């Protein structure tokens, strides 16, 4: 009898300590909803092909972090230690106890250090740089203007978020979604947001990647609404060939100018250009292949799964997340509109030689935004190939959004 009692007691104890019991604890229902939301994102990624390389890790990170008792991620470890006294006697109000995280953190806590210490986004930029051909931008430097104009969406969305009385950190983190650049959004939000903020890095990343996947749906109506049939029908001339030496000088020049002008943009722009120099050097094939493939893939997995882990129930099942999604689409749309409007101005100034559709590619979703310019242009003139012309503003947008991120980080700190 005693054996049966002991057996039953053990079973009861196991049941009470299991994750299932956690669902019935206070607030446990939120975890169930979050797990269901993670299934929705998995479906969107796998079934519908929405940015699967990122949404699959993010959604699985979301699943893992919402399993009661798994203890893979501890948001409380990422709270700032109030008024921490440093060795030199100075007070640091933004101190994170990394020693505690290393000793007691779960797997995702340890991996999340790469996000919080701003390691992963610049490494992703290294891979992007190793894959990017800046030739169209060098051949047509005026494309930089379109890349700059599309960043208008970031700053105008800052206004919208501020009107909704959000904190400066939330405003900047939401606004950067308008740059249509996932790693940049994560880079800014991981530096500015704390566990006390109304949003998390995960919710910002979710909104950014969701809208990046929806570029083919969001952009074309705005492009058609802001341009005339005549403007969309402009066939642009062929770009001049760019020599190897020009391509070699470009990354060094951009790094020097941008990093000296806005030092806080140096990690992103510097790594982007380092990757590009490796590619253009022609003598570092092994490093280029690693940056493009293995390193990029490893960092994508770490980044995705840990960013997903920060999407906890109290951050997603909230009105604030609704605001992020709403302002995110506003940011994206404004960025597209700003690019198109400057494209129209350039169309007028150039005497009708520039197709304003390439302006929308200034948001940096590479290469999707450029492909949309090509597609909408071909609706009017089937033999019109705008792709290479749109790649200029597209890669300029990557530099522009990194600069905009640096500006926001310089202002909000």
């Amino acid at each position, binding site marked *: 009898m005693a054996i049966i009692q002991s057996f039953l007691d053990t079973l009861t104890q196991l049941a009470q300590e299991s994750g299932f019991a956690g669902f019935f604890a206070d607030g446990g229902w939120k975890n169930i909803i979050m797990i269901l939301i993670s299934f929705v994102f998995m479906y969107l990624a796998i079934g519908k092909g929405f940015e699967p390389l990122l949404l699959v890790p993010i959604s699985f990170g979301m699943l893992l972090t919402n399993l009661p008792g798994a203890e893979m991620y501890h948001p409380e470890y990422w709270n700032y230690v109030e008024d921490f006294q440093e060795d030199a006697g100075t007070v640091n109000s933004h101190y994170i106890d990394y020693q505690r995280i290393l000793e007691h953190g779960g797997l995702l806590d340890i991996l999340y250090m790469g996000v919080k210490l701003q390691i992963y986004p610049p490494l992703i930029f290294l891979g992007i740089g190793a894959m990017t051909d800046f030739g169209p931008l060098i051949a047509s430097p005026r494309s930089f203007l379109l890349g*700059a104009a599309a960043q208008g969406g970031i700053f105008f969305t*800052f206004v919208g978020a*501020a009107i909704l009385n959000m904190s400066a950190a939330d405003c*900047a983190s939401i606004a950067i979604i308008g740059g249509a650049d996932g790693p940049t959004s994560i880079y800014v939000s991981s530096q500015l947001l704390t566990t006390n903020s109304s949003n998390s890095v995960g919710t910002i990343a979710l909104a950014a990647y969701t809208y990046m996947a929806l570029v083919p749906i969001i952009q074309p109506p705005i492009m058609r609404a802001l341009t005339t049939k005549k403007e969309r029908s402009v066939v642009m001339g062929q770009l*001049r060939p760019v020599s190897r030496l020009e391509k070699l000088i470009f990354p060094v*020049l951009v790094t020097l100018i941008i990093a000296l002008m806005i030092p806080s943009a140096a990690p992103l722009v510097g790594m982007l250009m380092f990757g590009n120099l490796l590619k253009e050097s022609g003598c570092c094939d092994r490093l280029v292949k690693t940056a493009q493939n293995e390193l990029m893939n490893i960092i994508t997995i770490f980044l995705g799964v840990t960013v997903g882990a920060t999407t906890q129930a109290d951050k997603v099942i909230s009105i604030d997340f609704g605001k992020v999604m709403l302002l995110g689409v506003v940011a994206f749309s404004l960025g597209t509109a700003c690019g198109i409007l400057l494209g129209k101005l350039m169309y007028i100034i150039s005497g009708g030689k520039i197709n304003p559709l390439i302006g929308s590619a200034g948001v940096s979703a590479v290469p999707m935004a450029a492909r949309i310019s090509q597609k909408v242009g071909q609706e009017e003139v089937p033999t019109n190939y705008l*792709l290479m012309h749109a790649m200029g503003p597209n890669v300029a947008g990557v530099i522009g959004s990194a*600069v905009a991120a640096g500006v*926001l980080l310089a202002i909000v700190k």
Partner: protein
Amino acid sequence: MSDLQSMFAQLLSSNIPPDQTDLGGETIASVVITGISVVFMGLIILIILVTLYGKIFEAINKSAEAKAKAKAEAEAAAKAAQKKDEPKAAPAPAAAPVVEDGIEEEVVAAIMGALSAMYAGSGKKPVLKGVKAAKPRRSAWSAAGIMDNTRPF
């Protein structure tokens, strides 16, 4: 103008704490104006520098091209002198490329772009006459066999 300057100076010297809410109209306006101005300034500096060195390289490339062209012309003239009696063949007019069904226009554009890039600087003008999908050289079974044998390497 002086108000704008003081706004810039104030914003750059004093930062906004991340936790601050209720930012106020002046702060918001200064963030927007400063942000857009700095992004444009940075990229305009790049436009100037990239255009400048682009012009320099274009000039260098043109002179190199002119030299190559002159050399080619001289060689052609020498050949023509040798073959005075041979009848001249009229250059064929460039026809639109014949594209096989199922091949996307983007692919054709990419091939044309690659050809132009390859011949750029050589003085030759490539003409794309047709695009058709290559037929597989070996059967699926034979390809699978080769894959199986070479995979370990």
